[in-house]
Protein backbone atom coordinates (compact mmCIF):
# COMPACT_ATOMS: atom_id res chain seq x y z
CA UNK A 1 0.00 0.00 0.00
CA UNK A 2 1.62 3.19 1.11
CA UNK A 3 4.94 4.27 2.42
CA UNK A 4 3.27 4.64 5.78
CA UNK A 5 2.02 1.10 5.63
CA UNK A 6 5.38 -0.50 4.92
CA UNK A 7 6.31 -0.28 8.57
CA UNK A 8 5.76 -3.39 10.61
CA UNK A 9 2.64 -2.90 12.66
CA UNK A 10 4.02 -4.01 16.06
CA UNK A 11 4.30 -0.44 17.36
CA UNK A 12 0.79 0.28 16.19
CA UNK A 13 -0.52 -2.77 18.00
CA UNK A 14 1.18 -1.64 21.20
CA UNK A 15 -0.38 1.80 20.96
CA UNK A 16 -3.83 0.46 20.20
CA UNK A 17 -3.65 -2.19 22.91
CA UNK A 18 -2.78 0.52 25.44
CA UNK A 19 -5.63 2.68 24.22
CA UNK A 20 -8.03 -0.26 24.36
CA UNK A 21 -6.95 -1.10 27.90
CA UNK A 22 -7.47 2.48 29.05
CA UNK A 23 -10.91 2.43 27.43
CA UNK A 24 -12.05 -0.94 28.71
CA UNK A 25 -10.42 -1.29 32.13
CA UNK A 26 -12.69 1.16 34.02
CA UNK A 27 -15.77 -0.63 32.70
CA UNK A 28 -14.25 -4.01 33.54
CA UNK A 29 -13.41 -2.72 37.00
CA UNK A 30 -17.00 -1.65 37.55
CA UNK A 31 -18.26 -5.17 36.81
CA UNK A 32 -15.52 -6.86 38.84
CA UNK A 33 -16.14 -4.66 41.87
CA UNK A 34 -19.86 -5.30 41.61
CA UNK A 35 -19.20 -9.05 41.91
CA UNK A 36 -16.85 -8.86 44.87
CA UNK A 37 -18.07 -9.71 48.38
CA UNK A 38 -17.71 -7.00 51.02
CA UNK A 39 -14.40 -8.28 52.38
CA UNK A 40 -12.71 -8.18 48.97
CA UNK A 41 -13.92 -4.76 47.82
CA UNK A 42 -10.76 -2.94 48.86
CA UNK A 43 -8.34 -5.43 47.34
CA UNK A 44 -6.72 -4.70 44.01
CA UNK A 45 -7.25 -8.28 42.80
CA UNK A 46 -8.29 -8.30 39.15
CA UNK A 47 -10.84 -11.06 39.73
CA UNK A 48 -13.18 -11.70 42.65
CA UNK A 49 -12.08 -14.69 44.78
CA UNK A 50 -15.65 -15.56 45.71
CA UNK A 51 -17.93 -13.88 43.19
CA UNK A 52 -21.36 -12.99 44.57
CA UNK A 53 -24.54 -11.24 43.50
CA UNK A 54 -25.12 -9.80 46.99
CA UNK A 55 -24.28 -6.29 45.82
CA UNK A 56 -26.97 -6.51 43.17
CA UNK A 57 -29.53 -7.76 45.65
CA UNK A 58 -28.69 -4.89 47.99
CA UNK A 59 -28.73 -2.22 45.28
CA UNK A 60 -32.01 -3.47 43.82
CA UNK A 61 -33.63 -3.41 47.25
CA UNK A 62 -32.24 -0.01 48.12
CA UNK A 63 -33.58 1.91 45.13
CA UNK A 64 -36.58 0.99 42.93
CA UNK A 65 -34.28 -0.27 40.22
CA UNK A 66 -36.82 -2.25 38.22
CA UNK A 67 -39.24 0.66 38.20
CA UNK A 68 -36.55 3.09 37.07
CA UNK A 69 -35.22 0.75 34.40
CA UNK A 70 -38.82 0.43 33.18
CA UNK A 71 -39.21 4.21 33.12
CA UNK A 72 -35.95 4.63 31.25
CA UNK A 73 -36.94 1.97 28.76
CA UNK A 74 -40.35 3.55 28.16
CA UNK A 75 -38.85 7.03 27.91
CA UNK A 76 -36.05 6.03 25.54
CA UNK A 77 -38.33 3.85 23.42
CA UNK A 78 -41.12 6.39 23.04
CA UNK A 79 -38.70 9.24 22.46
CA UNK A 80 -36.85 7.30 19.77
CA UNK A 81 -40.08 6.38 18.03
CA UNK A 82 -41.39 9.97 18.04
CA UNK A 83 -38.07 11.36 16.86
CA UNK A 84 -37.96 8.81 14.05
CA UNK A 85 -41.51 9.64 12.93
CA UNK A 86 -41.09 13.41 12.97
CA UNK A 87 -37.69 13.31 11.33
CA UNK A 88 -38.62 10.80 8.60
CA UNK A 89 -41.54 13.01 7.62
CA UNK A 90 -39.50 16.21 7.72
CA UNK A 91 -36.49 14.77 5.89
CA UNK A 92 -38.84 13.43 3.20
CA UNK A 93 -40.52 16.83 2.86
CA UNK A 94 -37.24 18.69 2.61
CA UNK A 95 -35.56 16.26 0.26
CA UNK A 96 -38.45 15.95 -2.23
CA UNK A 97 -39.64 19.51 -2.62
CA UNK A 98 -38.23 22.99 -2.87
CA UNK A 99 -41.03 25.10 -1.45
CA UNK A 100 -41.31 28.72 -0.37
CA UNK A 101 -39.62 28.94 3.00
CA UNK A 102 -38.02 25.53 2.78
CA UNK A 103 -34.50 26.92 3.14
CA UNK A 104 -35.49 29.00 6.13
CA UNK A 105 -37.20 26.07 7.83
CA UNK A 106 -34.30 23.80 7.08
CA UNK A 107 -31.96 26.41 8.50
CA UNK A 108 -33.91 26.28 11.76
CA UNK A 109 -32.87 22.66 12.14
CA UNK A 110 -29.26 23.28 11.19
CA UNK A 111 -28.96 26.06 13.77
CA UNK A 112 -30.35 24.22 16.78
CA UNK A 113 -27.01 22.71 17.73
CA UNK A 114 -25.81 26.24 18.50
CA UNK A 115 -28.52 26.68 21.10
CA UNK A 116 -27.19 25.25 24.35
CA UNK A 117 -29.58 23.44 26.62
CA UNK A 118 -28.94 26.04 29.30
CA UNK A 119 -30.36 28.81 27.12
CA UNK A 120 -33.76 27.09 26.98
CA UNK A 121 -34.03 25.22 30.27
CA UNK A 122 -35.78 27.83 32.41
CA UNK A 123 -38.69 28.63 30.05
CA UNK A 124 -39.09 24.95 29.26
CA UNK A 125 -39.18 24.16 32.94
CA UNK A 126 -41.88 26.80 33.44
CA UNK A 127 -43.92 25.43 30.51
CA UNK A 128 -43.61 21.93 31.83
CA UNK A 129 -44.83 22.99 35.25
CA UNK A 130 -47.81 24.78 33.69
CA UNK A 131 -48.73 21.64 31.75
CA UNK A 132 -48.54 19.64 34.97
CA UNK A 133 -45.92 17.40 33.39
CA UNK A 134 -43.35 17.37 36.17
CA UNK A 135 -42.57 13.82 37.30
CA UNK A 136 -44.36 12.35 34.31
CA UNK A 137 -43.20 10.35 31.32
CA UNK A 138 -44.88 12.94 29.10
CA UNK A 139 -42.60 15.58 30.54
CA UNK A 140 -39.56 13.47 29.79
CA UNK A 141 -40.60 12.54 26.26
CA UNK A 142 -42.58 15.30 24.56
CA UNK A 143 -39.99 18.11 24.76
CA UNK A 144 -37.60 15.81 22.91
CA UNK A 145 -40.06 14.62 20.27
CA UNK A 146 -38.19 16.40 17.50
CA UNK A 147 -34.52 15.83 16.84
CA UNK A 148 -32.76 18.29 14.57
CA UNK A 149 -29.82 15.94 14.42
CA UNK A 150 -32.02 13.12 13.11
CA UNK A 151 -33.63 15.39 10.52
CA UNK A 152 -30.25 16.51 9.19
CA UNK A 153 -28.86 12.99 9.08
CA UNK A 154 -31.93 11.54 7.36
CA UNK A 155 -32.02 14.43 4.92
CA UNK A 156 -28.61 13.31 3.62
CA UNK A 157 -29.84 9.73 3.35
CA UNK A 158 -33.04 10.72 1.54
CA UNK A 159 -31.14 13.00 -0.83
CA UNK A 160 -29.04 10.10 -2.04
CA UNK A 161 -32.10 7.93 -2.64
CA UNK A 162 -32.39 7.14 -6.39
CA UNK A 163 -34.84 9.57 -7.95
CA UNK A 164 -35.87 7.05 -10.65
CA UNK A 165 -37.64 4.89 -8.09
CA UNK A 166 -39.63 7.87 -6.85
CA UNK A 167 -40.48 8.83 -10.42
CA UNK A 168 -41.58 5.29 -11.22
CA UNK A 169 -43.91 5.37 -8.25
CA UNK A 170 -45.28 8.71 -9.36
CA UNK A 171 -45.99 7.42 -12.86
CA UNK A 172 -47.82 4.54 -11.23
CA UNK A 173 -50.06 7.19 -9.73
CA UNK A 174 -48.94 6.76 -6.15
CA UNK A 175 -49.35 9.71 -3.84
CA UNK A 176 -46.36 11.18 -2.07
CA UNK A 177 -47.55 9.43 1.08
CA UNK A 178 -47.76 6.14 -0.77
CA UNK A 179 -44.29 6.60 -2.26
CA UNK A 180 -42.86 7.30 1.18
CA UNK A 181 -44.30 4.10 2.63
CA UNK A 182 -44.05 1.76 -0.32
CA UNK A 183 -40.92 2.92 -2.09
CA UNK A 184 -38.67 5.01 0.12
CA UNK A 185 -38.96 3.51 3.59
CA UNK A 186 -38.63 -0.18 2.62
CA UNK A 187 -35.36 0.67 0.87
CA UNK A 188 -33.93 2.74 3.71
CA UNK A 189 -34.81 0.37 6.51
CA UNK A 190 -31.17 -0.20 7.49
CA UNK A 191 -30.29 3.49 7.64
CA UNK A 192 -33.36 4.29 9.72
CA UNK A 193 -32.71 1.38 12.05
CA UNK A 194 -29.17 2.48 12.80
CA UNK A 195 -30.36 6.03 13.42
CA UNK A 196 -32.93 4.53 15.77
CA UNK A 197 -30.21 2.73 17.74
CA UNK A 198 -28.26 5.95 18.01
CA UNK A 199 -31.28 7.89 19.25
CA UNK A 200 -32.16 5.17 21.74
CA UNK A 201 -28.68 5.14 23.23
CA UNK A 202 -28.62 8.92 23.57
CA UNK A 203 -32.05 8.89 25.17
CA UNK A 204 -31.07 6.12 27.58
CA UNK A 205 -27.99 8.06 28.68
CA UNK A 206 -29.77 11.38 29.00
CA UNK A 207 -29.15 13.14 32.26
CA UNK A 208 -29.76 16.87 32.08
CA UNK A 209 -33.43 17.02 31.21
CA UNK A 210 -34.56 14.20 33.57
CA UNK A 211 -32.67 15.98 36.34
CA UNK A 212 -34.98 18.96 35.84
CA UNK A 213 -38.22 17.12 35.19
CA UNK A 214 -38.22 14.50 37.92
CA UNK A 215 -37.85 14.99 41.62
CA UNK A 216 -39.25 11.69 42.91
CA UNK A 217 -36.99 8.72 42.56
CA UNK A 218 -39.79 6.31 41.57
CA UNK A 219 -40.77 8.55 38.65
CA UNK A 220 -37.26 9.02 37.50
CA UNK A 221 -34.89 7.36 35.09
CA UNK A 222 -31.97 5.18 35.96
CA UNK A 223 -29.31 7.89 35.59
CA UNK A 224 -30.98 10.05 38.22
CA UNK A 225 -31.54 7.04 40.46
CA UNK A 226 -27.88 6.21 40.26
CA UNK A 227 -26.95 9.74 41.23
CA UNK A 228 -29.32 9.66 44.20
CA UNK A 229 -27.86 6.34 45.28
CA UNK A 230 -24.40 7.86 45.09
CA UNK A 231 -25.35 10.79 47.33
CA UNK A 232 -27.07 8.52 49.88
CA UNK A 233 -24.54 5.73 50.16
CA UNK A 234 -21.37 7.17 48.75
CA UNK A 235 -19.05 4.59 50.27
CA UNK A 236 -20.97 1.39 49.52
CA UNK A 237 -18.77 0.72 46.53
CA UNK A 238 -19.96 -2.82 45.86
CA UNK A 239 -23.68 -2.00 45.62
CA UNK A 240 -22.88 1.27 43.85
CA UNK A 241 -20.98 -0.58 41.14
CA UNK A 242 -23.82 -3.12 40.95
CA UNK A 243 -26.27 -0.27 40.37
CA UNK A 244 -23.99 1.28 37.75
CA UNK A 245 -23.60 -2.10 36.05
CA UNK A 246 -27.37 -2.61 36.00
CA UNK A 247 -27.81 0.83 34.45
CA UNK A 248 -25.27 0.08 31.71
CA UNK A 249 -26.07 -3.53 30.95
CA UNK A 250 -28.98 -2.94 28.53
CA UNK A 251 -26.92 -0.52 26.44
CA UNK A 252 -23.89 -2.81 26.48
CA UNK A 253 -26.02 -5.71 25.26
CA UNK A 254 -27.27 -3.57 22.38
CA UNK A 255 -23.68 -2.58 21.67
CA UNK A 256 -22.35 -6.12 21.65
CA UNK A 257 -25.06 -7.29 19.25
CA UNK A 258 -25.02 -4.29 16.94
CA UNK A 259 -21.59 -2.77 17.43
CA UNK A 260 -20.79 -2.40 13.76
CA UNK A 261 -23.89 -0.36 12.98
CA UNK A 262 -23.55 1.62 16.20
CA UNK A 263 -19.94 2.61 15.51
CA UNK A 264 -20.61 3.40 11.88
CA UNK A 265 -23.54 5.66 12.57
CA UNK A 266 -21.70 7.45 15.38
CA UNK A 267 -18.62 8.05 13.25
CA UNK A 268 -20.68 9.08 10.26
CA UNK A 269 -22.56 11.62 12.29
CA UNK A 270 -19.33 13.03 13.67
CA UNK A 271 -20.01 13.47 17.30
CA UNK A 272 -22.87 13.25 19.63
CA UNK A 273 -22.66 13.29 23.39
Amino acid at each position, binding site marked *: MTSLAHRRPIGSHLILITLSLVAVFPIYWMFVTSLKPANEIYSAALLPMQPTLDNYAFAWSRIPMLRMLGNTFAMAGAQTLLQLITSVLAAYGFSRWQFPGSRLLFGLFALTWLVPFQATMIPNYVTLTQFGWRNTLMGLIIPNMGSAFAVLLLYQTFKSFPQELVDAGRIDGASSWGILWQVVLPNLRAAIASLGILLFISAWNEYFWPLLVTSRVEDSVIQIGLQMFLTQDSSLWGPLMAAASSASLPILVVYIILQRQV*IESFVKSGLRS
Partner: protein
Amino acid sequence: MSPSGAVYARTRTRLLPRLNIAWPRRLEPYLYVLPAVIAIVFWIYRPLAQTFELSFYEWNLLPTAPKVWVGLQNYSRIFSLPDMGVALRNTFVYMLGLLPLSVLLPMAIAIVTDNIGKRARTIYRALVFLPMMMAPVVVAVIWRWILHPTNGIVNLVLEGLFSLEPVRFFSDGNLAIWAIIFITGWKLTGLSTLVFSAALTNISREYLEAASIDGASRWQIVRYILIPLLSPTILFMTMLSLLLASQWTFAYINVLTQGGPLGSTTNIYYLLWNYGFQSFAIGWSSAAAMLMFVGFGVLALVFLRLSSRLAFYDN
Protein backbone atom coordinates in the same frame (compact mmCIF):
# COMPACT_ATOMS: atom_id res chain seq x y z
CA MET B 1 -47.22 16.96 -10.25
CA SER B 2 -47.11 14.62 -13.20
CA PRO B 3 -50.02 15.13 -15.56
CA SER B 4 -49.28 11.85 -17.32
CA GLY B 5 -49.67 10.13 -13.99
CA ALA B 6 -53.40 10.57 -14.13
CA VAL B 7 -53.62 9.12 -17.63
CA TYR B 8 -51.64 6.04 -16.86
CA ALA B 9 -52.93 5.62 -13.36
CA ARG B 10 -53.80 2.08 -12.63
CA THR B 11 -56.28 1.04 -10.09
CA ARG B 12 -54.30 -0.60 -7.35
CA THR B 13 -54.99 -1.70 -3.86
CA ARG B 14 -53.64 0.78 -1.41
CA LEU B 15 -52.22 -0.32 1.89
CA LEU B 16 -52.58 3.18 3.18
CA PRO B 17 -55.34 5.68 2.63
CA ARG B 18 -54.77 8.46 0.15
CA LEU B 19 -53.98 11.51 2.16
CA ASN B 20 -53.41 14.11 -0.50
CA ILE B 21 -56.89 14.66 -1.81
CA ALA B 22 -58.32 17.05 0.69
CA TRP B 23 -55.78 19.84 0.37
CA PRO B 24 -54.09 21.60 -2.48
CA ARG B 25 -50.88 19.99 -3.64
CA ARG B 26 -48.86 23.07 -2.76
CA LEU B 27 -49.45 22.54 0.94
CA GLU B 28 -48.20 18.99 0.88
CA PRO B 29 -44.52 19.66 1.73
CA TYR B 30 -45.50 21.81 4.67
CA LEU B 31 -47.56 19.02 6.17
CA TYR B 32 -44.58 16.69 6.10
CA VAL B 33 -42.20 19.07 7.80
CA LEU B 34 -44.78 20.47 10.21
CA PRO B 35 -44.51 18.05 13.17
CA ALA B 36 -40.73 18.41 13.41
CA VAL B 37 -40.86 22.16 12.87
CA ILE B 38 -43.45 22.58 15.60
CA ALA B 39 -41.37 20.50 17.99
CA ILE B 40 -38.21 22.50 17.31
CA VAL B 41 -39.89 25.89 17.41
CA PHE B 42 -41.90 25.17 20.53
CA TRP B 43 -39.16 23.50 22.56
CA ILE B 44 -36.06 25.32 21.33
CA TYR B 45 -36.73 28.68 19.66
CA ARG B 46 -39.69 29.78 21.78
CA PRO B 47 -37.79 29.18 25.04
CA LEU B 48 -34.70 30.82 23.55
CA ALA B 49 -36.74 33.94 22.86
CA GLN B 50 -38.21 33.78 26.35
CA THR B 51 -34.77 33.47 27.90
CA PHE B 52 -33.84 36.61 26.00
CA GLU B 53 -36.90 38.34 27.44
CA LEU B 54 -36.22 37.09 30.98
CA SER B 55 -32.69 38.45 30.81
CA PHE B 56 -34.15 41.95 31.23
CA TYR B 57 -36.10 41.05 34.35
CA GLU B 58 -35.48 40.13 37.92
CA TRP B 59 -37.45 37.05 38.88
CA ASN B 60 -37.23 34.11 41.27
CA LEU B 61 -39.07 31.40 39.29
CA LEU B 62 -42.13 31.47 41.57
CA PRO B 63 -45.26 31.77 39.40
CA THR B 64 -46.83 34.12 41.94
CA ALA B 65 -43.80 36.40 42.25
CA PRO B 66 -43.76 39.48 40.02
CA LYS B 67 -41.20 39.86 37.27
CA VAL B 68 -39.43 43.18 37.77
CA TRP B 69 -38.11 44.97 34.70
CA VAL B 70 -34.47 45.90 35.26
CA GLY B 71 -33.42 46.70 31.70
CA LEU B 72 -29.79 46.00 30.95
CA GLN B 73 -28.78 45.73 34.58
CA ASN B 74 -28.33 41.94 34.45
CA TYR B 75 -25.94 42.38 31.55
CA SER B 76 -23.99 45.28 32.96
CA ARG B 77 -23.38 43.47 36.20
CA ILE B 78 -22.69 40.10 34.69
CA PHE B 79 -18.93 40.08 35.06
CA SER B 80 -19.08 41.16 38.67
CA LEU B 81 -21.56 38.45 39.64
CA PRO B 82 -20.34 36.06 42.30
CA ASP B 83 -18.12 33.27 40.92
CA MET B 84 -18.45 34.52 37.34
CA GLY B 85 -14.76 35.33 36.93
CA VAL B 86 -13.70 31.93 38.16
CA ALA B 87 -16.34 30.18 36.06
CA LEU B 88 -15.26 31.95 32.88
CA ARG B 89 -11.60 31.19 33.51
CA ASN B 90 -12.42 27.53 34.17
CA THR B 91 -14.54 27.40 31.02
CA PHE B 92 -11.44 28.32 29.03
CA VAL B 93 -9.37 25.75 30.90
CA TYR B 94 -11.96 23.09 30.03
CA MET B 95 -12.10 24.16 26.40
CA LEU B 96 -8.34 24.20 25.90
CA GLY B 97 -7.56 21.34 28.26
CA LEU B 98 -9.83 18.98 26.39
CA LEU B 99 -8.26 19.63 22.98
CA PRO B 100 -5.20 17.38 23.45
CA LEU B 101 -7.51 14.47 24.33
CA SER B 102 -10.21 15.19 21.76
CA VAL B 103 -8.08 16.26 18.78
CA LEU B 104 -4.29 15.99 19.11
CA LEU B 105 -3.93 12.55 20.65
CA PRO B 106 -6.63 10.93 18.48
CA MET B 107 -5.12 12.41 15.33
CA ALA B 108 -1.64 11.21 16.27
CA ILE B 109 -2.91 7.75 17.10
CA ALA B 110 -4.92 7.55 13.88
CA ILE B 111 -1.92 8.54 11.76
CA VAL B 112 0.60 6.30 13.52
CA THR B 113 -1.64 3.24 13.50
CA ASP B 114 -2.83 3.60 9.93
CA ASN B 115 -0.84 0.50 8.95
CA ILE B 116 -2.92 -1.92 10.98
CA GLY B 117 -4.71 -4.82 9.29
CA LYS B 118 -8.41 -4.83 8.69
CA ARG B 119 -9.42 -7.57 11.06
CA ALA B 120 -7.37 -6.21 13.97
CA ARG B 121 -8.79 -2.79 13.23
CA THR B 122 -12.36 -3.98 13.76
CA ILE B 123 -11.48 -5.41 17.17
CA TYR B 124 -9.69 -2.27 18.33
CA ARG B 125 -12.54 -0.15 17.03
CA ALA B 126 -15.08 -2.02 19.12
CA LEU B 127 -12.95 -1.72 22.28
CA VAL B 128 -11.83 1.86 21.90
CA PHE B 129 -15.36 3.01 21.21
CA LEU B 130 -16.84 1.40 24.32
CA PRO B 131 -16.58 4.46 26.65
CA MET B 132 -18.83 6.40 24.28
CA MET B 133 -21.66 4.01 25.15
CA MET B 134 -21.49 4.73 28.87
CA ALA B 135 -23.87 7.21 30.47
CA PRO B 136 -22.23 10.26 32.05
CA VAL B 137 -23.45 9.39 35.54
CA VAL B 138 -22.10 5.85 35.25
CA VAL B 139 -18.78 7.23 34.04
CA ALA B 140 -18.68 9.62 36.98
CA VAL B 141 -19.45 6.85 39.46
CA ILE B 142 -16.80 4.54 38.00
CA TRP B 143 -14.05 7.14 38.06
CA ARG B 144 -14.96 8.26 41.52
CA TRP B 145 -14.30 4.71 42.62
CA ILE B 146 -11.13 4.22 40.57
CA LEU B 147 -9.66 7.54 41.73
CA HIS B 148 -10.81 7.21 45.34
CA PRO B 149 -8.08 8.66 47.62
CA THR B 150 -7.58 5.66 49.88
CA ASN B 151 -9.27 2.65 48.27
CA GLY B 152 -9.24 3.42 44.57
CA ILE B 153 -7.12 1.20 42.35
CA VAL B 154 -5.09 4.11 40.97
CA ASN B 155 -3.97 5.21 44.41
CA LEU B 156 -3.37 1.60 45.49
CA VAL B 157 -1.05 1.15 42.51
CA LEU B 158 0.69 4.51 43.01
CA GLU B 159 1.24 3.68 46.65
CA GLY B 160 2.49 0.19 45.86
CA LEU B 161 4.89 1.27 43.12
CA PHE B 162 6.19 4.62 44.33
CA SER B 163 4.88 4.65 47.91
CA LEU B 164 3.15 7.96 47.17
CA GLU B 165 0.78 9.67 49.54
CA PRO B 166 -2.85 9.17 48.46
CA VAL B 167 -3.75 11.66 45.72
CA ARG B 168 -7.07 13.41 46.34
CA PHE B 169 -8.09 13.84 42.72
CA PHE B 170 -11.49 15.39 43.30
CA SER B 171 -10.93 17.30 46.54
CA ASP B 172 -7.60 18.91 45.68
CA GLY B 173 -8.37 22.33 44.23
CA ASN B 174 -5.45 22.14 41.82
CA LEU B 175 -6.20 18.65 40.52
CA ALA B 176 -9.98 18.41 40.39
CA ILE B 177 -10.45 20.30 37.13
CA TRP B 178 -7.82 18.15 35.41
CA ALA B 179 -9.44 14.99 36.75
CA ILE B 180 -12.73 16.09 35.19
CA ILE B 181 -11.03 16.99 31.91
CA PHE B 182 -9.39 13.57 31.88
CA ILE B 183 -12.71 11.79 32.43
CA THR B 184 -14.38 13.80 29.68
CA GLY B 185 -11.47 13.00 27.39
CA TRP B 186 -11.56 9.32 28.32
CA LYS B 187 -15.05 9.14 26.89
CA LEU B 188 -14.19 11.02 23.72
CA THR B 189 -10.72 9.88 22.66
CA GLY B 190 -11.88 6.61 21.14
CA LEU B 191 -14.64 8.13 19.04
CA SER B 192 -12.38 10.93 17.90
CA THR B 193 -9.68 8.46 16.90
CA LEU B 194 -12.23 6.57 14.79
CA VAL B 195 -13.36 9.79 13.11
CA PHE B 196 -9.76 10.59 12.21
CA SER B 197 -8.98 7.12 10.91
CA ALA B 198 -12.15 7.19 8.84
CA ALA B 199 -10.98 10.50 7.37
CA LEU B 200 -7.54 9.00 6.69
CA THR B 201 -8.91 6.05 4.76
CA ASN B 202 -10.66 8.53 2.46
CA ILE B 203 -7.35 10.13 1.50
CA SER B 204 -6.08 8.89 -1.80
CA ARG B 205 -3.02 6.69 -1.45
CA GLU B 206 -1.53 8.15 -4.61
CA TYR B 207 -0.49 11.36 -2.89
CA LEU B 208 1.45 9.42 -0.31
CA GLU B 209 3.09 7.12 -2.83
CA ALA B 210 4.09 10.01 -5.07
CA ALA B 211 5.61 11.81 -2.10
CA SER B 212 7.59 8.82 -0.93
CA ILE B 213 8.90 8.18 -4.46
CA ASP B 214 10.08 11.77 -4.43
CA GLY B 215 12.02 10.90 -1.30
CA ALA B 216 9.89 12.64 1.29
CA SER B 217 10.50 11.50 4.86
CA ARG B 218 7.68 10.14 6.95
CA TRP B 219 7.48 13.31 8.99
CA GLN B 220 7.39 15.41 5.81
CA ILE B 221 4.52 13.32 4.49
CA VAL B 222 2.59 13.82 7.72
CA ARG B 223 3.40 17.51 7.93
CA TYR B 224 2.89 18.53 4.31
CA ILE B 225 0.33 16.04 3.02
CA LEU B 226 -1.67 14.32 5.73
CA ILE B 227 -2.29 17.25 8.04
CA PRO B 228 -3.40 19.63 5.26
CA LEU B 229 -5.66 16.92 3.86
CA LEU B 230 -7.07 16.25 7.31
CA SER B 231 -7.60 19.93 8.04
CA PRO B 232 -11.39 19.87 7.50
CA THR B 233 -11.67 17.06 10.05
CA ILE B 234 -9.26 18.82 12.41
CA LEU B 235 -11.27 22.02 12.24
CA PHE B 236 -14.56 20.20 12.69
CA MET B 237 -13.39 18.25 15.71
CA THR B 238 -11.73 21.31 17.24
CA MET B 239 -14.91 23.30 16.86
CA LEU B 240 -17.07 20.58 18.38
CA SER B 241 -14.66 20.12 21.23
CA LEU B 242 -14.49 23.85 21.99
CA LEU B 243 -18.23 24.36 21.75
CA LEU B 244 -19.27 21.29 23.67
CA ALA B 245 -16.51 21.01 26.29
CA SER B 246 -18.52 22.91 28.87
CA GLN B 247 -21.67 20.92 28.18
CA TRP B 248 -19.97 17.55 28.33
CA THR B 249 -18.32 18.36 31.64
CA PHE B 250 -21.58 19.42 33.29
CA ALA B 251 -22.68 15.94 34.39
CA TYR B 252 -19.27 15.16 35.90
CA ILE B 253 -19.16 18.45 37.74
CA ASN B 254 -22.67 17.96 39.07
CA VAL B 255 -22.09 14.39 40.19
CA LEU B 256 -18.46 14.56 41.35
CA THR B 257 -17.58 17.99 42.68
CA GLN B 258 -20.63 20.30 42.55
CA GLY B 259 -18.22 22.94 41.28
CA GLY B 260 -15.90 22.62 44.28
CA PRO B 261 -13.54 22.53 45.98
CA LEU B 262 -13.89 26.29 46.39
CA GLY B 263 -15.24 26.83 42.91
CA SER B 264 -12.19 25.29 41.28
CA THR B 265 -14.20 23.09 38.90
CA THR B 266 -17.24 25.26 38.24
CA ASN B 267 -17.80 26.43 34.68
CA ILE B 268 -20.18 28.76 32.96
CA TYR B 269 -22.91 26.18 32.39
CA TYR B 270 -22.71 24.88 35.90
CA LEU B 271 -22.97 28.43 37.17
CA LEU B 272 -26.05 29.08 35.00
CA TRP B 273 -27.60 25.98 36.45
CA ASN B 274 -26.82 27.19 39.98
CA TYR B 275 -28.17 30.67 39.37
CA GLY B 276 -31.32 29.22 37.84
CA PHE B 277 -32.22 26.34 40.11
CA GLN B 278 -30.25 26.86 43.33
CA SER B 279 -30.33 30.62 43.90
CA PHE B 280 -33.37 31.22 41.63
CA ALA B 281 -31.75 34.29 40.10
CA ILE B 282 -33.50 33.85 36.78
CA GLY B 283 -32.39 37.22 35.41
CA TRP B 284 -28.71 36.50 35.94
CA SER B 285 -28.99 33.02 34.58
CA SER B 286 -30.82 34.20 31.46
CA ALA B 287 -28.46 37.08 30.76
CA ALA B 288 -25.41 34.84 31.13
CA ALA B 289 -27.06 32.21 28.92
CA MET B 290 -27.67 34.79 26.19
CA LEU B 291 -24.07 35.98 26.31
CA MET B 292 -22.91 32.36 26.07
CA PHE B 293 -25.20 31.75 23.14
CA VAL B 294 -23.85 34.76 21.27
CA GLY B 295 -20.24 34.03 22.20
CA PHE B 296 -20.36 30.44 21.02
CA GLY B 297 -22.31 31.50 17.93
CA VAL B 298 -19.50 33.87 16.96
CA LEU B 299 -16.94 31.14 17.60
CA ALA B 300 -18.86 28.72 15.39
CA LEU B 301 -19.11 31.34 12.64
CA VAL B 302 -15.34 31.85 12.70
CA PHE B 303 -14.80 28.13 12.36
CA LEU B 304 -17.31 27.75 9.54
CA ARG B 305 -15.55 30.58 7.67
CA LEU B 306 -12.21 28.91 8.23
CA SER B 307 -13.40 25.53 7.07
CA SER B 308 -15.06 26.87 3.91
CA ARG B 309 -11.73 28.53 3.12
CA LEU B 310 -10.00 25.20 3.57
CA ALA B 311 -12.64 23.19 1.77
CA PHE B 312 -10.58 22.90 -1.43
CA TYR B 313 -8.36 20.35 0.30
CA ASP B 314 -11.29 18.00 0.18
CA ASN B 315 -10.81 17.09 -3.45
